[in-house]
């Protein structure tokens, strides 16, 4: 499974600093990934459905989804993905700041693949990203891409 090609990861995150930190994390870990970024849920759904400027977007291997975002938040994205026959096989990792029980419970009820709370320390954050990458892109067998 390893090193077949650059994995496509879609980062759904509204905060620019967090985007930078995440991108930096992936760069520093020297992971073979292409990190795509959208800033909110609406763009995320457009990306996944290849509409509105995302006609050439690849099908991501993994979605890293923030919860609190303007316009369409992570919960709504999860609901939309769960309802969409073509999208519901995509693994979604919730990557967010909140460790609230309610959020955790709600997201797992919506069948998110993993829930990760972002650590504040960058070194720890880096190891979290490495962990996500090595598990989801190397260890786990992902569903075949349908399109």
């Amino acid at each position, binding site marked *: 499974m390893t090193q077949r090609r650059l994995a496509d990861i879609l980062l759904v995150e509204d*905060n620019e*600093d*967090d985007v930078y930190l995440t991108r930096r994390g992936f760069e520093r870990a020297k992971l073979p990934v292409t990190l795509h970024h959208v800033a909110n849920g609406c763009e995320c759904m457009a990306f996944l459905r290849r509409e509105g400027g995302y006609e050439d977007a690849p099908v991501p291997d993994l979605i890293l989804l923030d919860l609190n975002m303007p316009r369409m938040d992570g919960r709504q994205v999860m609901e939309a993905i769960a309802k969409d026959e073509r999208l519901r096989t995509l693994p979604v990792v919730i990557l967010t700041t909140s460790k609230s*029980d309610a959020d955790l419970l709600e997201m797992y009820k919506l069948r998110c693949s993993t829930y990760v709370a*972002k650590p504040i320390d960058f070194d720890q954050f880096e190891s979290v990203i490495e962990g996500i990458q090595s598990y989801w892109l190397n260890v786990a067998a992902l569903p075949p891409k349908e399109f």
Partner: protein
Amino acid sequence: MRILTSRPLLLAVAFAIAALAFWRQIELGVPSTIAYATAVAFAYAARSSKWVWIVAAICSLLALLGAMIDQPTAWHDLLARSLFAIWAPAYPCAKALTERAERECLAGIVNWSGDAIISQTLDGIVTHWNRGAESLYGYMSEEMIGKPYSAVVPSNHGDECSGLKQKLRAGETVIQCETTRICKDGSRLDVALTASPIIDSIGKMTGIATIGRDITDKKRIDAERQRMAEELERRVEERSADLRRAKEALERSNRDLQQFAYVASHDLQTPLRAIAGFAQFLQIDYGGRLDAQAEDYIRRIIRGATRLQELIQDLLEFSRVESRECSIGPVDMNEVFERSLDALHAAIQESGAQVTKDPLPMVTGNPFHLGSLLENLIDNAIKYRTEAAPRIHVSYVQEDDVWRFRVKDNGIGIAPEYGDRIFEVFQRLHAASDYPGTGIGLSLCRRIVTRYGGKIWVEGDVGRGSSFLFTLPKPAELDGAHAGATANETSSATDRGDQE
């Protein structure tokens, strides 16, 4: 003089005179005198029928004596005539007197009754007006007898009497109603009336008798009671509305608080992560090109951000004790203990602490809360250590209706005067540089224990170690069930303590 006008006495006198005339034809003398005296005696004694009989008996005796003295040979004849003269008037006289007494008794009852008893003819002319009526309506009987009853009927009730009359004529025997009457002084009275027909010996209705009772007070009390009931209802309604509003305000405030906690959890930490992250980038990317002071600044920035995050996390944890929806059920404190040790594994390893326990009971609560409680207390005991390796022991005793737990350590101890302060939020006795922490741990413990209706306090003194004690409710249905379940854990816990 009234006595002489009554019929039985007239009768008695008539008999006496007849008897006197009867005797005059034969002869005068003792019997006639006796008969005459008897009649007069009846007249005076006629106040009661009893006295009629007594006087008759005395006179009979006198007649006997008189006859025997007057006419020793023919006394029988004389006596017979005398007795006839005495007893013949006595009987009707006594009977009439008895009837009169009964009538007077009844009249007395009626007359002196507190209720207004009034009789009127079918034309509405008052024929009887008792004292009750006098005091109720203010009219004396002399003023009313022979006058129309309508004097006490308010003008707008004009047809009420005829209505009553018609009903009584139609055969109803007793009618009760509540109505209004007017007194002599013009004031209005609420009265309860009972009306019944007056029927003569041949069954013809000749008038109406009414008994009236003042119900002004009753009406007033009824109205007052009604008013009070309404007032009470209104107040209850107001109170419920207040409570509803307070409840809504509380719910709103709780929602706000949860919202705040959520915002704090997410929005406060995002910029914090940026501060810490970019400071680290500075360190990483410009590491060699900055002087020592700049490196120190960066370290301080990172440390500050990390500490701020700890504070936020702890505050969130603190606020969740109330807001978190949690299930409460039986919890095995032995398992809670084991989990706490797992969570504190690093700190225990690092400090070389020995953490032991007695077999612990089942309690009622939420495992996360209780875990947090025990974890904080053990963590505290490890943190505030002396030079010696920390030795911590968890035990409990059974009190009336609670378990009292004790977490005893051999640490630096605490001066009794600070015993309460340490449970306040952010209250610390030591600088954060000496003993790390946010100052929330013990207040979190207190919040948890208080939530379950227990208490938490500290014993010990500086240099003698300290014991943190807390109480938790005893689950009634689980009494005694814990002993067997926990007996085999003593050794494992001790083993564990020895290892560490």
